[in-house]
């Protein structure tokens, strides 16, 4: 909201997408999309179901490459450690990229291991050995997402026994534990009650100090509350839909 009232303050670009095409089995989902996402801002992505929002998020951490029979065209540039990088360049390490660009899936996806292991998993994958540091991080991150009090007595229990909303928050904690520069959230609050959703919203607003956040959401009031700008996905194209301009264009 703030940025739309001061449209001429240039904020540095974190993600630059140019001429993006995407297709599953030859069926085009995204076509010729070019867009920039500002740093330290929350950008909401809205659009009808099946329009390709989740797909778009996957082009930003190259996760689609793990799916069979997809094709992408175009260019995605991300500022990593202050340097613009073409993330599809051959010299860009995909694991390092995914550590800097965290992702929360549309469906909560706890791994079949303990709650603690789930949250600490990205750290362990990254080769972190310091037990104390891992414990501290896990606690801190679980506190952030408001889950610590619920689970502090059952950290060794299975993550599959958490409720849907708890799993969603656990997955957010897991995505945040590496302190990524970009956070891709795919409807992170769909299974949360009003209070938990609001807590998450506060958290996101706080996190954007250190992080650029893209959030897919179907809840317009939620979008209005937290998003600095809104992007609409329609007909395979992404368009900025700021409050002031939307009245003119629509």
């Amino acid at each position, binding site marked *: 909201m703030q940025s739309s009232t001061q449209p001429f303050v240039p904020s540095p670009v974190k993600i630059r997408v140019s001429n993006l095409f995407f297709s599953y089995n030859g069926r085009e989902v995204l076509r010729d999309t070019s867009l920039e996402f500002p740093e330290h801002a929350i950008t909401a992505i809205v659009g009808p179901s099946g329009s390709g929002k989740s797909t778009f998020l996957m082009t930003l951490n190259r*996760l689609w490459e793990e799916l069979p029979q997809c094709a992408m065209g175009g260019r995605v540039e991300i500022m990593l450690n202050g340097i613009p990088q073409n993330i599809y360049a051959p010299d860009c390490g995909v694991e390092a*990229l*995914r*550590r800097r660009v965290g*992702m929360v899936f549309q469906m909560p996806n706890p*791994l*079949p291991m303990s709650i603690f292991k789930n949250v600490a998993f990205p750290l362990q*994958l990254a080769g972190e050995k310091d037990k104390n540091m891992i414990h501290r991080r896990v606690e801190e991150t679980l506190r952030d997402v408001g889950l610590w009090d619920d689970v502090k007595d059952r950290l060794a229990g299975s993550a599959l026994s958490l409720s849907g909303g708890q799993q969603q928050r656990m997955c957010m904690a897991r*995505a945040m534990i590496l302190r990524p520069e970009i956070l891709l959230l795919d409807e992170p609050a769909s299974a949360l009650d009003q209070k938990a959703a609001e807590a998450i919203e506060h958290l996101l607003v706080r996190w954007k100090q250190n992080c650029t956040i893209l959030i897919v959401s179907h809840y317009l009031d939620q979008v209005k509350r937290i998003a600095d700008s809104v992007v609409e996905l329609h007909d395979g194209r992404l368009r900025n839909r700021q409050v002031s301009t939307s009245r003119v264009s629509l």
Partner: protein
Amino acid sequence: MNGASMGRLVERGIITFSWLAGAILFTVICAVTGYLCFRGLKTMSPALIFGSTDPMSALLLRQRVFDGLFPAMVGTLLLVLLSVGWAIPIGTAGGIYLAEYAGGGTKKIFNLLFDLLAGLPSIVIGLFGFSLTLFLNRHVSKELHPCLLMSSIALAFLILPYIVRTTQIALENLPVQNRLTGLAMGATRLQNLFHVLLPQALAGMVSGVLLAIGRCAEDTAVIMLTGVVASAGVPRSLLSHYEALPFYIFYISSQYADQQELATGYGAAILLLFICLFLFAVAFVIKKSLPCQVFSQR
């Protein structure tokens, strides 16, 4: 008769049929084990296993057992362990390759080849083992004869498809979501495989090993052509002849002299069942204690 009551009738029919199928299976199992016990139980005694030899000195391999099944039991046990030991690493790696790394054309070809291998009659595998032994004898070392080693290698070929297939299917059946989860956190494909996919696929993979154990323990055709003999004692090395329970059963049932000898055949069958049970139990214990289970406590 209207549609709803018709549907109910069909449903009741299906339920009855399922019950029937279950009952038949149960009856067959009971009948087979019951008959085995009826014919063989009276022979069950230390004498069946150790004959007239002192059990302790037989177990410590101080004395050879001539008139008991001890050498055949040891032979079968060693055979199963060796074959499964060869087949597990190769089969698991093959399954992982097919599920995770092989692309389009290669995958189709390998799938076809493994299906063919799975469909080969065991006597053909036995012939292959026999020819391989001959070949090695002629071109590598005159010391190589049909032996425990050659049998276990031939048997490994027999069970390889089971292990490859179950590994492959267990991995491929994991939901796509699970696969993406680890990768999205920055796991390498190898990390994802070892920390996320394999622990979840393990239960399925063990069922392949169980199948393989059963297959090894019962097979007669392969070992008949590659090294089993009626009387050899406990094998002294991988390169010696050996005895095995299924072969003993086959041998006794085809040329028994009296009812007493036939009864020992039934006794051998019961022992074979127990060996299989024992190996299954070991497989389960190993599965439970595998280190990657720490990652996946359900």
